[in-house]
């Protein structure tokens, strides 16, 4: 609970309409897209100016109130659940694209800008912002930076961190800080922009970004390759890259997911196929034609039973329909969808798939797996009903086992969803005690009262 006078103080900064403390409103900000228990904040505050953000942060620090910054709340690791109560700071009113610079190829944006809207605005100027997380239609750039969001184009174009040139933010005392630059080269001071990327709101409250833009590829070609099993698909992935072809997208789907997609979306997939790859190469037209031919040949040499190359935009769209329908098709099978993002070196995909198979059997779980084969970022998706406590207990055990398996294969806890609340307990498993301590010291120095998204990444 916060006192009436503190509530008043927030209201005087952001206006009465932008402070919410009714029971129903607090419940509306108690959850995000992660399958975790909701926790109520004491107050929800929605600043509409940058100046107000700084004042809100200072008020929180002065009163020892935990602060959870929330954009669209599409977070899949619980990073925007106000697990220690306190204030939820909404950023979606800070939604201005300040500049798209075509000459120097960068953009300056506020934290609450919606990713897809930004990408469209950039495309309208003939430029390209490649990071495309699955949630991009709703998610904000602030959230993307805070979680270091990925997407389908990670293999060739990298992820959010590869496009962050500068971050402006408020420190825990509410002071406005700047980092990075609009120049391609900048070695001024500590590399603070990259420290902020993936910090999940634990070090500062980010307000604006300078983002790198690139020229769009002139041409692209998409294809769908169907394989009898995971082994042949994985061998093709390795062979494509070993042959010095880096597709912009290289997506994978297992037999279960193929069946689900076909059952729901009816896009003409063979349900008896062991796995399939959706591949797109892009770049200069000449290079695209050459690479597409190479990819086709490699897939066929490695056991592909059917390959369909899109001849035009309509066919290209058809190829991608299957991928777009993957999550929807799985999500409709059971009430609860636990979407994970265990990531392994791409050569270890067959081993990881084998491990997932074992885990599904051991814990009696239904797991459909799809994801970004090119970068090893898999999305094992557990289908369950969270109301069934016995089943959900098995799900939790299964998730533990999934991450243990990924780490054992030299992988990582998160390819693109972040650590948040969901995976903080595994942090030491991937790194070590000293590494976690190092991060904790850093956090303590920047946030002595531990109010910035406490409990996230590093646990309690």
């Amino acid at each position, binding site marked *: 609970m916060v006192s009436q006078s503190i509530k008043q103080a927030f209201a005087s900064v952001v206006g009465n309409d932008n402070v919410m403390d*009714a*029971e*129903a*409103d607090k*419940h*509306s*900000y*108690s*959850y*995000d*897209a992660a*399958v975790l228990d*909701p926790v109520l904040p004491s107050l929800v505050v*929605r600043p509409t100016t940058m100046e107000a953000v700084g004042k809100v942060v200072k008020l929180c620090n002065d009163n020892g109130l935990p602060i959870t910054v929330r954009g*669209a*709340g*599409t977070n899949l690791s619980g990073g925007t659940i106000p697990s220690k109560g306190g204030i939820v700071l*909404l950023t*979606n*009113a800070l939604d201005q694209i300040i500049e798209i610079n075509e000459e120097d190829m960068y953009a300056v944006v506020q934290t609450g800008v*919606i990713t*897809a809207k930004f990408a469209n605005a950039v495309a309208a100027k003939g430029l390209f912002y490649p990071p495309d997380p699955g*949630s991009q*239609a*709703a*998610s904000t750039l602030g959230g993307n930076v805070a979680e270091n969001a990925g997407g389908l184009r990670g293999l060739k174009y990298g992820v959010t961190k590869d496009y962050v040139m500068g971050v402006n933010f408020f420190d825990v005392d509410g002071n406005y800080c700047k980092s990075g630059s609009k120049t391609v080269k900048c070695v001024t001071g500590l590399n603070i922009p990259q420290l902020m990327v993936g910090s999940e709101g634990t070090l500062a409250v980010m307000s604006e970004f300078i983002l790198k833009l690139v020229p769009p590829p002139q041409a692209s070609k998409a294809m769908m390759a169907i394989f009898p099993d995971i082994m042949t698909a994985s061998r093709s992935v390795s062979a494509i890259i070993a042959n010095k072809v880096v597709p912009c997208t290289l997506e994978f789907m297992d037999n279960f997911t193929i069946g689900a997609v076909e059952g729901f979306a009816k896009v003409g997939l063979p349900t008896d196929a062991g796995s399939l790859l959706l591949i797109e190469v892009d770049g200069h037209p000449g290079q695209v034609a050459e690479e597409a031919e190479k990819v086709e040949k490699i897939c066929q040499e490695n056991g592909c039973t059917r390959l369909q190359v899109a001849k035009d935009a309509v066919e290209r769209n058809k190829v991608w329909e299957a991928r777009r329908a993957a*999550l*929807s098709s799985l*999500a*409709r099978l059971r*009430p*609860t*969808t636990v979407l994970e993002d265990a990531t392994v070196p791409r050569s270890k995909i067959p081993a990881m798939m084998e491990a997932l198979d074992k885990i599904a059997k051991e814990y009696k779980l239904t797991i459909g797996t799809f994801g970004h084969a090119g970068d090893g970022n898999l999305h094992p998706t557990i289908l369950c*009903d*969270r*109301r069934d406590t016995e089943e959900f207990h098995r799900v939790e055990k299964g998730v533990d086992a999934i991450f243990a398996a990924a780490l054992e294969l030299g992988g990582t806890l998160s390819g693109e969803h972040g650590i948040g609340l969901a995976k903080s307990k595994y942090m030491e498993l991937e790194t070590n005690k000293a590494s976690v301590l190092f991060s904790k010291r850093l956090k303590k120095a920047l946030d002595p009262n531990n109010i910035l998204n406490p409990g996230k990444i590093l646990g309690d």
Partner: protein
Amino acid sequence: MADLNQMLKMLGELDDQLVNCMRCGMCQSVCPLFAETGRESDVARGKIALLEFLSHEMLKDAKAVKDRLDKCLLCGSCAAACPSGVKVVDIFLKARAIITAYIGLSPVKKAIFRGMLTKPALFNNLLALGTKFQGFFTSPVNDIIGSSCSKLLSPLLGDRHLLSLADKPLRSIGNLNTAPGKSGLKVAFFYGCVVDKMFTGVGEAILKVFKHHGVGVYMPIDQVCCGVPSLASGDMKSFEDLVRMNLKLFGKGDFDYIITPCGTCTSAFHHVWPLMGTGLSQAERDQIEMLAGKAMDINAFIVDILGVSVVEPAAGAKKVTIHDPCHLKKSLGVSGQVRTVLKANPNLNVVEMSGSDVCCGCGGSFNLQHYSVSTKIGKKKRDSIAATGADIVAAGCPACMMQIADMMSQAGDRVAIKHPVELYAQTLG
């Protein structure tokens, strides 16, 4: 009812539907209301979470949940875009009825639904009185749109630019029951409240279409509201009363189709009637199922059944743009036929606006309760229409036509607002 346990039990029955929401938040990207307010409780995910918390007694304030639940256009954009296939509008209609039964209907709504809508004779007399006196209270503002505003009534109506009530309602034609002509088809014509009382030209155009194509018409003038407004306000009793009154007239089903000029009315027959109304008898349910199979939007009827097709536009054709009403496109999937209907008129050139299927912000009684945000949403629609430079905007829903007229008139645009069937009827001799 007013029994907490009863409400919890009924909400609990919705649990299987609520739990399908995976909280992904994708509904935010398509919700016209959320685009304006940015509030989680304004978007489907937030409302579904609140219903779940209420049904599990984690949240006590049912009135607060109802207030947030009521603030929704019921446009169905979220349901159409939901990866998990959550039936959002169905959930909201049911939940509104459940919570309203617990809290009680507001006195104003009680007066409107139980005092007027379900008493058609009184309703019609009151509106006839309104027609007689409207000229004294309003002054015309836009001759192309045909809108007026009223300083005298502004405490009641705000700054709305209104369309006049028709001098004579459509029902003044009297009951129709004609035999099938050359088409061999006979249809029931359910004209709906707004066409009866305001856009009588739409009704007349439809009758002209039927006549031209040799379609027999059954049009009883005792027909009443389809019940969606009552249901949207959670008033299950009025809804069931209205359904029964209509079933008395249409329940025999001695026609091939039941045609409406309104996406909402068609989706009421098609989808809402079969879904709702637990107090109805099996015989009545059977009649509802029969009507659901026969209900069809006029645009779909003209194209899919009468086989009207596209013609080449003539020189000097007028530019027409199309607004896709939510219930027409998102719940009935009728949008291509609307374009064909317009392209069947050689004097029209169709130009698409950006976001033709984005909600206009009317949402029925949403416009009455939340006029300010309804206007903000509507202004965006107005801007999309104006950007096409069209002379005419066509919308296959009388409620959208009212909202668009208000928005265009306030902006001073000289763009006519027509139902597609009116424009098609112009081509018939």
